[in-house]
């Protein structure tokens, strides 16, 4: 008879069999048996965070930078509710997380016991699936199933709620099933006919554009490789969503920059005027489409996505290909290569005019800004940071707001999994703990959180985690003393009524760094910026960099809402020429 194991032992057996090396967590009454078992499993390292939300975001950073699922361990009640923001964030951005939460003993469930909450009820809408394990004999099956659900198809978070008595109870351990039965839910549902149809569209297109998204990153490094081949074979211009940055090299000439609300002029105009739009692993988010009725009005639309419910959700498409991006693009590339009549050459001449038009849009140089010798412009700071770090394999996380958009616009990513940002949920406070997770996954790499001073204060306590594990993360704060994006909208939409968007009291970040036991660096003027950034890069340990930037800078270009892609507001250079009329302003 096989040995009986306790629930806590089974949890670790499963984690070992799932090849988990790191878990992010915070102990508490209802998970103590699992924490007690930790010492017997040296292959699994626990990272003690300072708040469960931090554990969730760190696991997200870990997952997004490594391609492996992030594992979170929290206690019942407040432990579980604190992780809800991170679970929702992971759900919106399709990040594979496995969250294990403790629960009060089964006989106390429903009695309002100490630190009891309806964890599976609360997390049901923000996980792909969740389980309350009420029978010890189900535990190993549920654990393995959880990893499978989190990592297959469109990835996402799952949660396993384990009552304390189940952690003590004993049962046999079951190894994961090799066979992958998916309730009839296989992910590649496309046919060669669909691929042929797409290839036909490719050869006919005169004004094509590829719009790629986070799905390419989620599909793994091979997907980015296949995408690059596809773009080269076709000669088509490519733009990317916020989450897709890095799948295609940001400094390549065929790349038009990010699209959407703060995307480039050329990318958005190309989206509007194209005759063939190929969406690869993106979901027509409302920050991308602008006004739905006037979204890319004259194009044939193709959508490649692993999640069938993404198809036709917002934009009706003409050809839908449901499948994993790697498989679909590889199949397309093969099909193109098989066609003997040199499709790529003939098509490249077809689209020469289109490229001329794109070059004209490019001349607008929509990411421009008026630089200054006196104050540091935030865009300039990101550009300098990029120039000084581009030769290293740098990982960048961000918080949410203006600094996030400037980072997306001015930092060029050449590899997938190097850019971690909260796009769907827009969680301020994401970047610092995410950087912790990234650094755990990549101990030797340079990890920078491009932050805003308001966002970073939301999860600042995780600096303590960084110091505890000597994680040399660099927190690069673009400090403008405002919730910048809020202030920008108030300026443009609410007659400059800056209601509660100014932080009257901010901590001294230098002293804060000292208090946490890490290094503080401050930059006030453009003249010292490069030296200070270099000092930050060269320092072997965590750094808080307080970069004082011009507080009045706005993030341009911008699509005002209720407007289509071809009606963007451009930056100050352009605004000098055409002042926005009062009526236009109301439409932002």
């Amino acid at each position, binding site marked *: 008879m096989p040995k009986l194991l306790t629930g806590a032992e089974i949890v670790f057996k499963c984690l070992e069999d799932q090849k988990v090396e790191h878990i992010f967590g915070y102990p508490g009454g209802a998970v103590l048996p699992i924490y007690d078992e930790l010492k017997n499993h040296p292959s699994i390292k626990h990272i003690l965070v300072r708040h469960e939300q931090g554990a969730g975001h760190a696991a997200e950073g870990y997952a997004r930078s490594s391609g492996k699922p992030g594992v979170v361990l929290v206690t019942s009640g407040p432990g579980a509710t604190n992780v809800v923001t991170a679970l929702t964030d992971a759900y919106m951005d399709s990040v594979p997380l496995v969250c294990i939460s403790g629960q009060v003993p089964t006989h106390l469930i429903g009695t309002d016991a100490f630190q009891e909450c309806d964890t599976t*009820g609360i997390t049901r809408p923000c996980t*792909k699936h969740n389980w309350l394990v009420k029978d010890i004999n189900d535990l190993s099956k549920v654990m393995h199933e959880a990893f499978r659900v989190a990592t297959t198809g469109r990835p996402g978070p799952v949660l396993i709620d384990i009552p304390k008595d189940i952690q003590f109870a004993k049962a046999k351990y079951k190894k994961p099933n090799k066979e992958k039965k998916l309730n009839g*839910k296989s992910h590649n549902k496309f046919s060669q006919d669909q691929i042929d149809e797409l290839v036909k569209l490719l050869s006919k297109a005169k004004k094509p554009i590829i719009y790629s998204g986070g799905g390419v990153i989620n599909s793994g490094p091979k997907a980015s490789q296949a995408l690059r081949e596809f773009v080269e074979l076709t000669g088509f211009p490519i733009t990317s969503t916020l989450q897709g940055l890095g799948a295609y090299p940001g400094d390549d000439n065929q790349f038009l920059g990010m699209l959407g*609300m703060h995307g480039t002029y050329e990318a958005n105009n190309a989206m509007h005027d194209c005759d063939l739009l190929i969406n690869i692993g993106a979901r027509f988010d409302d920050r991308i*489409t602008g*006004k739905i*009725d006037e979204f890319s009005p004259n194009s044939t639309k193709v959508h490649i996505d692993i999640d069938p419910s993404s198809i036709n*959700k917002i934009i009706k498409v003409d050809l839908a290909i449901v499948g994993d991006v790697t498989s679909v693009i590889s199949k397309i590339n093969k099909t193109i290569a098989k066609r003997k009549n040199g499709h790529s050459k003939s098509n490249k001449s077809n689209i020469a005019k289109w490229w001329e038009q794109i070059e004209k849009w490019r001349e607008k140089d929509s990411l421009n800004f008026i630089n200054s010798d006196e104050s540091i412009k935030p865009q300039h700071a990101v550009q300098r940071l990029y120039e000084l770090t581009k030769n290293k394999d740098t990982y960048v996380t961000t918080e949410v707001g203006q600094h996030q958009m400037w980072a997306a616009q001015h930092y060029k990513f050449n590899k997938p999994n190097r850019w971690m940002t909260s796009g769907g949920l827009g969680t301020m406070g994401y970047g610092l703990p995410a950087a912790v997770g990234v650094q755990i996954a990549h101990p030797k790499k340079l990890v920078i959180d491009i932050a805003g001073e308001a966002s970073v204060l939301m999860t600042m306590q995780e600096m303590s985690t960084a110091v505890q594990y000597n994680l040399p993360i660099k927190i690069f704060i673009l400090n403008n003393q405002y919730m910048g994006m809020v202030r920008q909208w108030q300026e443009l*939409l609410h007659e400059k009524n800056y209601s509660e968007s100014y932080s009257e009291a901010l901590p001294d970040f230098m002293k804060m760094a000292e208090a946490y036991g890490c290094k503080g660096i401050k930059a006030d003027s453009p003249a010292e910026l490069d030296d200070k950034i270099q000092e930050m890069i060269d320092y072997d340990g965590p750094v808080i960099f307080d970069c004082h930037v011009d507080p009045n800078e706005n993030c341009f270009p911008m699509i005002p*809402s209720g407007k289509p892609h071809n009606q963007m507001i451009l930056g100050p250079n352009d605004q000098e020429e055409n002042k926005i009329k009062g009526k236009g302003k109301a439409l932002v």
Partner: protein
Amino acid sequence: MPKSKSAYSIPSKKQKSDTYIFVVWVDNEAGVLARVVGLFSGRGYNIESLAVAEVDAVKNISRITIVTTGTPQVIDQIRLQLTKLVPVHKVAEFKREDKDVIFKEMALFKVVGKRNKIEKCLNACKKFNPVILDETKSSAVIQITALRREIDVMNKKLKPLGLISTSRTGAVAMTRGAKIFN
């Protein structure tokens, strides 16, 4: 109409909504109904009626029948979102006007009054397979099976005849002929 000050888009023209019936086969496990219903409420879909019960005790399968309204795009989304739920095995949907599908609701009417009024009630229900489940000198419980709107009509009609309480199920559905839902 005042101009939008929002950074979200303005709703575009609404398409026409139709009534559809969804049939969902799910694992009969704790919380499965909450998942299905939560999907509807969370995404703003509407539920007109709901019927759920286990139909296969060996395989542990429950069958949920949901009547809902929505534009074709919304109906598509409902099907695709339901299919994504882990305990969902299959999903079928059809329009209420579909001639190949039978759907029925059951209602229990409690009528209190003199004998002749109860007789009148029974008469009125004739078309809908009335069954008397309980009878006393001054009351009766009548069961009928009918379409939703027919039950609505009966509900109104029986009020003056002494109807004091109505209890009704959600619709259940079945295809005609030998074929089953795919």
